[in-house]
């Protein structure tokens, strides 16, 4: 097949065939007011050298997360990805077509996904996990749909400590359904009484852990109240590294745990592709969305892996499938699995500890800056600051000084005027004392 654009001769031949004089004639039914008056002014083609030069100049306007003090978080975190992760995920043994339907040619991929599921189940404290979903936000929406199926109820209550993008994703999924979503107002202090919103038709409470504003709360009382009301507790984790140190959601009574897996093995890369984690209890496995790998034995009794419980899925259940997603984030799941395997259980905990310690240093230093109030009494590696002026202005000013100061809450929830002065700052194992000092000094200058 040729990959060249059409020639003028091709165009003439096609127009003659359908009997119109010009391409513009195809648009006569569009009202003139909605049409462009003149052709779009695009530059002509350029050579490779010129294109590279132009785009490098564009790229140079970005302030990347490497080489500058970076405190960005709010669901996407700057972590170290070992070079060995990239080397291993590119090995030929892992090359496979899109989705491993055929176990006889995909044992490597299936085994890796099986181990991925085992890791996800262990780190969330749950009994069963799927082979991954697209990202944390869509996994959250799938969790709500699943809770509705399990409970046969239709109303989900979202915490005000849930990431606004996750909230919006759930609302979008529910828009053309009979499901009702009650999203509580943003809760920067972490004081809302979510259990008070339970009623006889509540399918689930959806709570983030640590919360969007960084708070770490014991979810066991919430789980008990949800269960007493016949509802499920869905726990959302946007910073998977936190699970290396914190009590698992499973141990606190969660029924479904979903998470964003980007923090392990996956670079920020402008926001994707990322990795949705999804785990639940054994008794709900048939209502779980997504692919599941299972261990089995072949005709000669040897251990092997296959996709299992497929009757939940579209190619068998059609419109009654548990989800319209029939695939997973295979490559990102592999990177996650390799990174976590390299860390090991003890290494994972050490990594989490490094993150928490860096955040403590960050909080302590910023608390001494005039015009900065630390909102949190608890946090893992991210916390909320209340500034003396709108956070977006401070962030812009600091970006000019080549410091990525964090994420203003107004960036993600522009409708919430009360949050205008709130700034989320995150620290990771990559955060140095020099970076913290640079932020504190520059922030003090902007706020004075």
């Amino acid at each position, binding site marked *: 097949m040729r990959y060249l654009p059409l020639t003028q001769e091709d165009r003439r031949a096609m127009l003659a065939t359908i009997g119109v004089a010009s391409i513009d004639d195809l648009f006569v039914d569009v009202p003139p007011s909605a049409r462009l008056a003149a052709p779009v002014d695009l530059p002509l083609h350029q050579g490779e050298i010129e294109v590279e030069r132009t785009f490098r100049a564009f790229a140079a306007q970005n302030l990347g997360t490497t080489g500058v003090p970076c405190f960005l978080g709010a669901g996407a975190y700057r972590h170290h990805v070992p070079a060995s992760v990239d080397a291993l995920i590119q090995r030929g043994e892992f090359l496979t077509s899109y989705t491993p339907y055929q176990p006889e040619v995909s044992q490597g991929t299936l085994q890796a996904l099986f181990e991925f599921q085992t890791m996800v189940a262990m780190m969330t404290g749950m009994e069963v996990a799927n082979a991954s979903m697209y990202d944390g936000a869509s996994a959250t929406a799938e969790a709500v749909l699943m809770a509705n199926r399990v409970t*046969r109820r239709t109303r989900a209550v979202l915490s005000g400590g849930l990431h606004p993008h996750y909230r919006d994703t759930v609302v979008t999924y529910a828009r053309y359904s009979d499901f009702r979503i009650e999203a509580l107002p943003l809760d920067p202090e972490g004081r809302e009484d979510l259990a008070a919103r339970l009623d006889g038709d509540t399918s689930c409470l959806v709570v983030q852990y640590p919360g969007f504003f960084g708070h770490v709360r014991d979810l066991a009382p919430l789980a008990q109240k949800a269960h007493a009301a016949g509802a499920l507790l869905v726990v959302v984790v946007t910073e998977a590294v936190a699970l290396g140190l914190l009590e698992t959601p499973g141990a606190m009574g969660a029924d479904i745990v979903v998470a964003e897996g980007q923090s392990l093995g996956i670079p920020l890369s402008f926001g994707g592709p990322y990795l949705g984690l999804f785990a639940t209890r054994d008794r709900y496995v*048939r209502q779980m969305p997504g692919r599941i790998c299972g261990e089995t034995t072949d005709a000669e009794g040897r251990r092997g892996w296959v996709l299992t419980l497929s*009757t939940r899925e579209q190619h*068998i*259940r059609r419109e*009654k499938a548990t989800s319209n997603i029939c695939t997973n984030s295979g490559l990102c799941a592999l990177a996650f699995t390799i990174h976590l395997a390299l860390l090991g259980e003890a290494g994972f905990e050490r990594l989490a500890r490094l993150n928490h310690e860096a955040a403590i240093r960050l909080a302590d230093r910023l608390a001494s800056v005039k015009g900065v109030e630390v909102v949190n009494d608890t946090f893992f590696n991210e916390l909320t600051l209340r500034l003396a002026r709108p956070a977006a202005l401070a962030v812009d000013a600091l970006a000019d000084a080549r410091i990525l100061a964090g994420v203003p809450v107004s960036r993600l929830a522009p409708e919430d005027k009360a949050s205008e002065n709130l700034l989320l700052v995150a620290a990771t194992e990559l955060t140095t004392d020099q970076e913290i000092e640079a932020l504190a000094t520059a922030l003090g200058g902007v706020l004075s």
Partner: protein
Amino acid sequence: MTERRYTREHEWITVDGDVATVGITDFAQEQLGDVVYVELPAVGRKVTRGGEAAVVESVKAASEVYAPLSGEVVAVNEALAQEPATVNADPFGKGWFLKMKLADRGELDGLMDEKAYRAFLAESH
């Protein structure tokens, strides 16, 4: 108790007073193969004749089980959760799916009796 009546979707039903017991036929279980899971409705759910009442899943397929008549579910066979293979072993007995309180006993007349069902099987399969 009435004699068993049948649907064209291979469910059976017997009626005792105003409570009916529903399951799938021997022919249905044989066609499905080994049953591995049965999804049952909530007690109290209202079902209408021909509407989906349960799901039966075998190693080959997942299929809907339809309510033979309209009514309200008053009991489900919880034992199937642990032993779904009971559907294969004893489809007309211990492998029952649900009990329902009938809205209109008159609807029974629209179902096939044993003889009619056998003729239907012979003719269509």
